[in-house]
């Protein structure tokens, strides 16, 4: 192996430029040849990744400036889709408003919940810890069992919530929880929170176990007096990498709310009370086939997700500095 590499290197030695150094292109070719095995290993994944993730983002941005229905050739319309979205589409603005309310509430709460529960669980002995981890993680992995909330908040008196409230005398007649825009968003938030202790929760549990124990002893000697100071001065700064990873997962998930909303409140929901950017996108993309307009919605969503993630990453880099 070593030998063949040597031969390769000398055999294909690039022509020297006048200064006696190999040119940029020759260096490039030499590196590519040296690393060709690595590129072979990378290529199956990367080709699919380019085809199904990178390329779609690019064509989505391109189509957002066109009028396209999948049948006729796309027509360039400039910023028209975007101006229509912002000035003439009230339903989009409702969806945007709901998405922002939603992510501002569930994003931070779910993130903090992931951390707080991981932190509490970490104090338990290993067997109890494993059990509690399962309890908290189970909803997010149970594959769409969240429909159970539909039965809990069912509008008739068979719904658990109505039954309970009527039995205790708080209510006299059932409430249509999932049809009333007053309650809809709050219930979806609750269910989304129930589902949100997922990947980042596990990352935090793992992160807490890797914090160097001796730091706590050293901290105690240096005057750390209680668990809160310990948390702020030792635990959080040592976990910064996991905290940044968890933030990405939670922010992306909180802005992508759609499945729970459509499963519980229906699609379209009453008075668009549970309408979000993603449901608006699905409406235009998979029902009306206005691909240009749907692409503009997707591009707005892309900007919103990427923008808020990069912003939060910047802020989190300062934790403990």
């Amino acid at each position, binding site marked *: 192996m070593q030998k063949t590499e040597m031969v390769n290197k000398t055999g294909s030695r690039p022509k020297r430029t006048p200064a006696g150094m190999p040119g940029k292109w020759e260096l490039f070719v030499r590196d590519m040849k040296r690393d060709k*095995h690595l*590129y072979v290993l990378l290529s199956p*994944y990367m080709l*699919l*990744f380019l085809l*199904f*993730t*990178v*390329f*779609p*983002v690019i*064509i*989505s941005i391109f*189509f957002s400036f066109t009028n396209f229905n*999948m049948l006729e050739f796309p027509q360039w319309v400039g910023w028209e889709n975007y101006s229509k979205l912002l000035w003439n589409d009230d339903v989009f603005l409702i969806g945007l408003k709901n998405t922002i309310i939603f992510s501002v509430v569930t994003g931070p709460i779910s993130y903090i*919940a992931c951390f707080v*529960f991981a932190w*509490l669980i970490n104090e338990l002995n290993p067997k109890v810890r*494993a059990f*509690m981890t*399962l*309890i908290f993680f*189970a*909803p997010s*992995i*149970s*594959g769409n069992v969240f*429909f159970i*909330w*539909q039965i809990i908040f*069912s509008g*008739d008196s*068979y719904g658990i919530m109505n*039954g*309970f409230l009527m*039995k205790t005398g708080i209510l006299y007649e059932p409430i249509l929880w999932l049809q009333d825009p007053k309650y809809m968003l709050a219930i979806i938030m609750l269910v989304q929170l*129930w589902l949100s202790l997922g990947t980042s929760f596990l*990352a935090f*549990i*793992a*992160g807490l176990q890797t914090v160097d124990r001796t730091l*706590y002893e050293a901290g*105690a000697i240096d005057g*750390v007096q*209680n668990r809160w100071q310990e948390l702020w001065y030792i635990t959080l700064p040592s*976990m910064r990498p996991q905290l940044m*990873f968890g933030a990405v997962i939670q*922010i*992306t998930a909180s802005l992508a709310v*759609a499945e729970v909303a459509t499963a519980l409140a229906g699609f379209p929901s009453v008075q668009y009370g549970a309408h979000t950017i*993603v449901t608006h*996108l699905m409406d235009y*993309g998979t029902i009306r086939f206005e*691909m240009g307009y749907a*692409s503009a919605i*997707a591009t707005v*969503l892309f900007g919103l*997700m*990427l923008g808020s993630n990069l912003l939060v990453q910047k802020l989190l*880099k300062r934790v403990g500095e």
Partner: protein
Amino acid sequence: MKIALRMKRKINRSWQVDILLFLLLGGFGAFMAVPLIYVINNAFKPLDELFIFPPTLFVRNPTFENFSDLFQVMKNSWVPFSRYIFNTVFITAAGTFGHIILASAAAYPLAKHKFRGHKVLFTVIVLSLMFSPHVTAIPNYMIMSTLGWLDSYQAIIIPAFAYPLGLYLMKQFMEQIPDALLEAAKMDGASEYRIFIQVVMPLVKPAWLTLLILMMQMLWGTDGGSFIYSEQLKTMHYAMGQIVQGGIARAGVGAAVAVIMMTVPIVTFVLSQSNVIQTMASSGMKD
């Protein structure tokens, strides 16, 4: 006993706050568990118990009626329920297998080698964690339609191979493999492919299990979305949606499907938990 407990007491912990915090943990633990307990109990409730007012949480006279009903009802429908189970199992198994192989192959060079483009590629992967697949749903529909993959298993399976989170976690985990080990294999004349298959892959077993859990989270609950419209290719999640749409009359059968659906991922997680946590320890983002 008391002394032993006190000896074990960690530094900087007061028992008052301990109790308060564990009450908090217990309360929220119940919030997480009750819906699942309720659905499991519902699956075993006979018809008359499902309609009691006020509704009860626990079953009194457990029965397997709902499960036999499920197969009975669905046998007479156009597509038998076993077909939906097969579709979900097949999509999950194929998607997970391909993803683990492809993501590991791509993670190895990114974790252990510096080559032209390694930084750019990894940055793009991290950026792609920052938006959800919804962003690319519309163009992906067009791509699937161009490839002629609409209404087929591969429309769900193949894109799952290139899911970015799996590659990210695998790469972070592989970085812990000591370089000396790879150097030694190289000295012995192993090619990069052999190093990958014989040295790296056996060392990252915990990460395989993590990717399995992640893919299960994504694929086990898939309803086929807008990519699959033939009834015989639809998944268990879709069938469950149809049954639940049947309303209160099908509540027991719906719960039975839910129990079947949640058992597999939960058991998988129970069996792989320590490995998953081990992998997640290296999940952090280093700038």
